[in-house]
């Protein structure tokens, strides 16, 4: 304790000195003269309080660090025991899906709307997880594929009258094509270089959409994108020619929440499908090849794998999921403009993947929920909202740098004959 007193005094003194020179005194010009103004007792009181806090912290610093270390070791989160068993896990997943399906009928309209957005981010997170988490390719332009998907649907609809269901597979294919075309030349690059090129790609797409005014409407965006129909049933008050409206068909009163609920359920089903497809892929040889490539690409080549091909498959598959998410986003918003696809979107999706724990699907889902809900919940804090958000991110990286639920490698059952 004694050995710590001196450094603690020193730190407190330094705080006081720096604080006093920055906050305590100020230069003010009066006419041609500059005078030093010394601030009131309240400022000084604050400064002394700060010094006292620093002093106290220096004394207990070691203990705090020890507590933190313990927390880090103790924080190896394990799934509750009842989730270890396959059958029980399946039951839990079924229950969770059931609850998610029930949710929109009980929650408020705005909550359902936010949940739909969350599900879109879940899809994006899962898709990027293939590229970044599994294949280890740092893609900073993921939003570009999201934009391609959204614009494919919007443009096909406004020019050729394609419905959502007709446009969806085309949007998926289109983004996959973009992923392939971009991936082909750049996947020879590694790490930082790849990140920069993909970052550029995301921006190019956005700027292109912004400037191709004749086709995309430029910054004005595309409006009046119809929501998807449910087998020929539309959710508008009055259906278009050749369609029936949902409320008339079932003989119920028109209610705009029907549409919100339908979009939610649609997004949920797509998110589940994406999660399932990726879950299967991870357990197939190609999924293992992605991970092997992330670990050691020389070893992969020595085994006859073509690294560019393997990377390209991850890139293309990841991109096509973004395209599907983009189409759903366009359908939900009804209006898209290049402003929806700025770099910050890429950053958020990447943050979801990293926060979730690279490669882990459940982690990505949780992180996507956290990343979209936190800003909503923190809305009450007004201007401190983003500050709070940033603080939570920093704390997260301090306490759980490996992410919420880091990937536990899937293991195959050993069949002994």
């Amino acid at each position, binding site marked *: 304790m004694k050995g710590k007193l001196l450094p603690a005094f020193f730190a407190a003194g330094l705080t006081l000195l720096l604080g006093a020179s920055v906050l305590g005194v100020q230069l003010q010009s009066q006419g041609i003269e500059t005078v030093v103004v010394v601030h009131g007792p309240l400022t000084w009181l604050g400064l002394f309080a700060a010094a006292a806090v620093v002093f106290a912290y220096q004394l207990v610093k070691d203990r705090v660090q020890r507590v933190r270390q313990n927390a880090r070791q103790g924080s190896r989160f394990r799934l509750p025991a009842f989730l270890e068993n396959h059958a029980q896990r399946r039951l839990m997943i079924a229950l969770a899906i059931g609850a998610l399906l029930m949710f929109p009928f009980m929650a408020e309209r705005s909550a359902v709307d936010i949940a739909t957005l969350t599900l879109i981010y879940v899809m994006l997170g899962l898709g990027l997880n293939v590229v970044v988490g599994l294949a280890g390719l740092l893609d900073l332009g993921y939003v570009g594929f999201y934009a391609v998907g959204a614009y494919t649907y919007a443009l096909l609809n406004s020019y050729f009258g394609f419905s959502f269901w007709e446009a969806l597979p085309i949007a998926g294919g289109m983004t996959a094509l973009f992923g392939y075309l971009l991936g082909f030349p750049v996947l020879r690059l590694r790490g930082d270089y790849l990140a920069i090129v993909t970052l550029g790609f995301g921006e190019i797409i956005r700027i292109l959409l912004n400037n191709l005014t004749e086709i995309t409407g430029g910054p004005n965006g595309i409006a009046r994108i119809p929501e998807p129909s449910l087998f020929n049933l539309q959710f508008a008050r009055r259906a278009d020619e050749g369609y029936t409206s949902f409320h008339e068909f079932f003989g119920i009163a028109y209610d705009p929440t029907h549409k919100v609920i339908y979009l939610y359920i649609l997004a949920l089903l797509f998110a589940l499908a994406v999660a399932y497809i990726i879950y299967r892929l991870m357990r197939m*040889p190609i999924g*293992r*090849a992605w*991970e*092997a490539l992330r*670990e*050691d690409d*020389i*070893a*992969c*080549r*020595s*085994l*006859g*794998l*073509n*690294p560019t*091909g393997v990377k390209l498959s991850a890139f293309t598959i990841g991109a096509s999921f973004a395209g599907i998410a983009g189409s759903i986003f366009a359908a939900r918003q009804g209006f898209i403009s290049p402003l929806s696809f700025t770099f910050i979107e890429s950053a958020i999706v990447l943050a979801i993947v990293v926060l979730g724990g690279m490669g882990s699907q459940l982690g990505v889902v949780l992180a996507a929920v956290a990343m979209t809900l936190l800003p909503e919940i923190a809305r009450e804090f007004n201007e401190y909202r983003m500050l709070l958000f940033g603080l939570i991110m920093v704390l997260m990286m301090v306490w759980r740098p490996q992410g919420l639920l880091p990937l536990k*490698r899937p*293991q*195959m059952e*050993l*069949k002994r004959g």
Partner: protein
Amino acid sequence: MAMLDVVNLTTHYGPIQALDDVSLSVDRGEIVTLVGSNGAGKTTLLMSICGDPKPTSGTIRFEDEEIQGMTTSRIMRSGLAVVPEGRRIFTGMTVEENLAMGGYYRDKQEIARDTDYVLALFPRLKERYHQRGGTMSGGEQQMLAIARALMSRPRLLLLDEPSLGLAPIIIAQIFEIIEKLRDEGTTIFLVEQNAHRALSIADRGYVLEHGRVVLADSGKALLANDEVRRAYLGG
């Protein structure tokens, strides 16, 4: 006709010449070893056979097919496998998954059969079957690297310094396995710094110095050769 035929091979790293007009051959069913000191070009020769770096001139024929222009992944799928220097197993994956990666281009039944085969060859790997590669000892990792290479059922196995950094007792085991593989019909091309051990199991050997083959003879003859003894076997 030799199984592997390297004719007048020259390889450069940028402006630096690493191999100078190297010719050698490996016949079916042989263990052929390449010995030489650090920096003589042993690994370069092996990697040139694998297609990376690409040779500047010369031909490499494997089973009567010229392979020097092919991509590495093509070459590695043509019946040839390499255990790279430094093992390079997938440390985050289990033994089982490492082996499955080795048989990437084969179907499930073949993988299952060959997994049984390599596990019989390396019983130690069976004990470690669900363990991550990175948590195993160096010797076990080397066994895994060899087993993984065998998963593609190669007709020719290239080994780069399998004894590197291992305890003598493990080295002895590894060399025993190499001989056993040869006896079971796999042709082996072995690059080693541990010249004594390598030459004692080899049918034939080459000595590489400054990118050139300076001696070629049977393993026994090289082991008895005065120059070789002085340079590589400590007198």
